[in-house]
């Protein structure tokens, strides 16, 4: 490409991008949402920092023997700090202690009988269905080869029983363990979806990360695990990505009974300070969900059945509430 051609291409790109960028309509600045979100992040940051400091003081005073266990590179103090900090959060759920929806007077109408998310219908039942090791306390050594599972929501679509599960694979401490863990996850996924390639290297999954747990979010329809799951790295206790989650981060699971290319359920991760979420559909109506803790992960999850016809990038909102009922944030959702 000659210099003249290059200059012409750059000018065209500049013009074209300006055309596109200026085509978007600029609405009002959502000051309240920005401030609420910023304060929420700041609170979480201070809480974690304060918790770490408190644990450090205790450890120096000679009580550090209680802080054992996992011993990741970040240090036992950080691991314990998260547990300590979580205990300070009002209403923060343990694996078996997720707050009941009845503790929060719901301002929303009940969902339709067909679209009945479990979190609204039977909120107390969600955290108690734990087929494997989900009852393990945070003191249980974290085994990167044994996932902790929790059902984060359920519902019915077209007469099919739908459940969303999260398998939390604790962070591996060595690259070798990380690879082994990746193979185990892959084996489990291939069992549900034989069309996946045999080589885990083709998965495109996140690479091993000392600071990150891995989650596998999958759909169970009529008692059978379905293909089309979601695997991602997620913040581990003591990890550095403290602001990794937000009320709008989510994943759709839609390979089974819904309309073609339409999701049946959506699973969303939130921070531990979120005690309840109300999703309002743009087509009307809303649904409440109670986020569920999975093992000792600082990232909590909820899942709801999507309202048919609400597909689109805008219009649906998710409002997250703290345990005291205060609003933590209101976000437009992309799902």
């Amino acid at each position: 490409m000659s210099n003249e051609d290059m200059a012409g291409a750059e000018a065209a790109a500049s013009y074209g991008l300006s055309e596109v960028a200026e085509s978007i309509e600029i609405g009002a600045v959502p000051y309240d949402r920005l401030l609420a979100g910023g304060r929420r992040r700041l609170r979480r940051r201070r809480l974690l920092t304060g918790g770490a400091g408190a644990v450090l003081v205790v450890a120096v005073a000679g009580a550090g023997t209680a802080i054992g266990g996992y011993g990741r590179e970040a240090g036992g103090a950080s691991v314990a700090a998260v547990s300590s900090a979580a205990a300070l959060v009002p209403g923060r759920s343990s694996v078996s202690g997720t707050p009941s929806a009845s503790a929060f007077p719901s301002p929303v109408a009940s969902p339709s009988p067909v679209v009945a998310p479990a979190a609204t219908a039977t909120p107390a039942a969600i955290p108690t269905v734990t087929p494997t090791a989900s009852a393990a306390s945070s003191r249980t050594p974290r085994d990167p080869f044994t996932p902790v599972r929790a059902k984060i929501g359920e519902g019915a679509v077209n007469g099919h029983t739908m459940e969303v599960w999260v398998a939390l694979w604790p962070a591996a401490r060595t690259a070798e363990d990380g690879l082994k863990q990746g193979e185990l996850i892959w084996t489990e996924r291939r069992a549900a979806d034989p069309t996946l390639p045999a080589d885990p290297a083709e998965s495109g999954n996140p690479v091993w990360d000392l600071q990150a747990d891995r989650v596998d979010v999958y759909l169970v329809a009529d008692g059978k695990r379905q293909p089309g799951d979601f695997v991602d790295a997620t913040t581990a206790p003591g990890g550095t990505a403290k602001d990794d989650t937000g009320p709008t981060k989510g994943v759709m699971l839609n390979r089974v009974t819904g309309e073609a290319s339409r999701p049946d359920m959506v699973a969303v991760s939130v921070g531990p300070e979120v005690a309840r979420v109300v999703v309002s559909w743009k087509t009307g109506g809303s649904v409440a969900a109670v986020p569920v803790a999975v093992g000792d992960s600082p990232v909590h999850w909820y899942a709801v059945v999507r309202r048919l016809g609400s597909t689109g990038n805008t219009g649906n909102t998710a409002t997250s509430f703290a345990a005291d009922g205060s609003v933590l944030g209101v976000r437009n959702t992309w799902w």
Partner: protein
Amino acid sequence: MGAQKTARDDEFRAFAGSAWSRLLRTAYLLAGDRHGAEDLVQQALERAYVHWTKVRAADDPNAYVRRILVNEHARRFRRRPAEYLVEAFPDRPAPTGPDPDARAVLLAALAALPPRQREAVVLRYWEDLSESQTAAAMGCSVGTVKSQAARGLAKLRETSSLSELTTVGGGR
């Protein structure tokens, strides 16, 4: 304490108000859709609020927040696995023939670029940053910016959108 918080909030509000439209347009080019753009800007500004003392003390607060925005964009793509089913749910089927809206074609071509190429192109040719400023925003070398921007530009040229827009608008 309360006065400090109020001052912090006031400063932040003023900054967010002035930076919002520019950040949103940049985010729109990076994310490819309005909602994704708003979410990206919101995340970036929330992070800016947390680190407000650093932001306000920076030589160029706009550049500081722009870097947060670019990092947030890069982080999302880094973390998104191949199995991620849906990013933005279409309300309508994808067009099967030529799109009459050249802007839509360009936006789609931009969205098809790898994230780093897209960032380089947007920062160089929309934000009109120098190569060194772009490198600072992307956290990479100037050489990387040059190569990523050149590749991205070459791919955009393969679409007809650039020439159509240039023909219609007469270039700039």
